[in-house]
């Protein structure tokens, strides 16, 4: 089992407010790591640290270390454009571009210019297939992405991210805006995706975490209370607070 991302003593601040306190954890390659915890505990903040999305927020500062293969992610000199190609992100609410389905999927390669034009069509098809959306949209690839249902839009966003050939997928509550059927589709998809990618997923649903993930981290008030194999964490939690949370006694 290979460590893909190693987080050490991560402290995160929004101005004076400390949102993450001394987080250390390992993200393993080709595994699904779920992050759970009550609202406001810092799950999204943690995810945003990994692809440096917090750069867009005024006054947000991360201290400590997050190493990703040979790269130190938090280093000021890290090329975030390159980093975000390798660490893709899917958001809570589907956010397709107001462009056609094709344009959405090919957005990344068109900008980065690292895939020759003759391969675009194949990439379009394979990305949509990996996101198990192809059969639903193959006859309307030139229609606006906004013509799709919410669940389809979310899978389009996944396809768009996969098309840039990332190594890691960050997903921040990717199914919270979707109905159970669309959710089931995406969960199935994750099972497939982990063969090729390392996945970190934030979820509010403990059932979801238990169903799909290999490892789970429980956050509370900016601290990582417990981290381990999903099976162990849900059957024999070590910390009283984890137990309270997963049995629904608070949060």
């Amino acid at each position, binding site marked *: 089992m290979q460590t893909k991302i190693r987080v050490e003593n991560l402290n995160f601040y929004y101005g004076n407010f400390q949102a993450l306190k001394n987080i250390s954890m390992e993200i393993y390659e080709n595994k699904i790591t779920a992050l759970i915890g009550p609202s406001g505990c810092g799950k999204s903040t943690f995810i945003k640290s990994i*692809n440096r*999305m917090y750069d*867009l927020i*005024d006054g947000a500062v991360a201290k400590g270390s997050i190493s990703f293969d040979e790269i130190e992610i938090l280093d000021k000199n890290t090329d*975030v*454009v*390159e*980093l*975000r*190609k390798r660490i*893709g*992100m899917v*958001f809570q*609410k589907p*956010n*397709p*571009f*107001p*462009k056609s389905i094709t344009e959405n999927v090919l*957005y*990344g390669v*068109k*900008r*980065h210019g690292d895939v020759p034009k003759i391969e675009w069509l194949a990439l379009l098809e394979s990305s949509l297939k990996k996101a198990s959306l192809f059969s639903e949209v193959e006859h309307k690839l030139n229609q*606006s992405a*906004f013509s799709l249902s919410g669940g389809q839009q979310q899978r389009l*966003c996944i396809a*768009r*991210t996969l098309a*840039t050939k990332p190594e890691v997928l960050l997903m921040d509550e990717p199914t919270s805006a979707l109905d159970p059927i669309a959710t089931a589709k995406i969960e199935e998809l994750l099972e497939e995706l982990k063969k090729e990618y390392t996945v970190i997923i934030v979820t509010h649903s403990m059932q979801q975490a238990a169903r799909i993930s290999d490892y789970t981290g429980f956050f509370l008030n900016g601290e990582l209370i417990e981290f381990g194999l999903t099976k162990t964490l849900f059957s024999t939690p070590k910390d009283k607070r984890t137990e309270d949370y997963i049995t629904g006694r608070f949060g």
Partner: protein
Amino acid sequence: MTKKKKRWLEEKSIEWVLIMVSVISILTTVGIVMTLFYESYEFFTVVSIKEFFTTLRWAPVFDPPSFGVLPLLSGTFLIAFLSSFISLPLGLGSAIYLSEFASKKARKIIKPILELLAGIPSIVYGFFALTFITPIIRSVLPDTSIYNALSASIAVGIMTLPMVASLSEDAMMAVPDSIRQGAYALGSTKLEVAIHVIVPAAFSGIGASFMLAISRAVGETMIVAIAAGQTPTFTLNPLESVQTMTGFMVNMALGDIQQGSIEFKTVFVVGALLFLVTLVMNFIAKFVIQKNREVY
């Protein structure tokens, strides 16, 4: 009177006042348009439509007079066209800078300045063109006439720039942040996000600002009356003196012309033409905007 009845009366009377106000403004517009077209009709009983639209000499107060409107049309479009080379790219550029690159602090300083610029009376721009821009052009190109289309176009462009910047920026700021974040998360640079995501997403608003700027340029009067001259010339040479439709109208309005005379009617016929040109442009703008509208 019961409370309920009183409230009903209040509501009704307010409704009536509002209806009256709208009727007055509609009637005024209808009245203006009817006057324009009535006088134009009278004009065309004397001058043939063919002469008006196909001959190249505009000299209504000369003896013998000549009524070819093309020089005025070409003058108007020449200035609108040239000014758009300043207002559209610079306006859009400022909008992109303001919405995607500028820090909150910079935006706070620059936006009011732009709005201030938009509030400067156009006559000031006219004198600025004549006394500042024209000498610069003439120092580079000495053959340029004192009154020339280029100088007026530059001033019109500067005048309409803040409108493009401000309206385009509003449109770009209205693009939801989630879309921006999606683009950044795919590994885009700021410039790529601006050009490939935000500008296309805000296209309908940006297009509207472009059309408005061009409409303003077509209707602009004081700058062209002062800086472009009063020589109706059928030319595409920006260094020559030209006259626009509005320039002609203001010129005639200032001179003494006999009410009901043919010279008098030319003002209305040119006005009607200007009205039609602007109307068509607004329709095109509406069409373009509707076609590209995205609702978030």
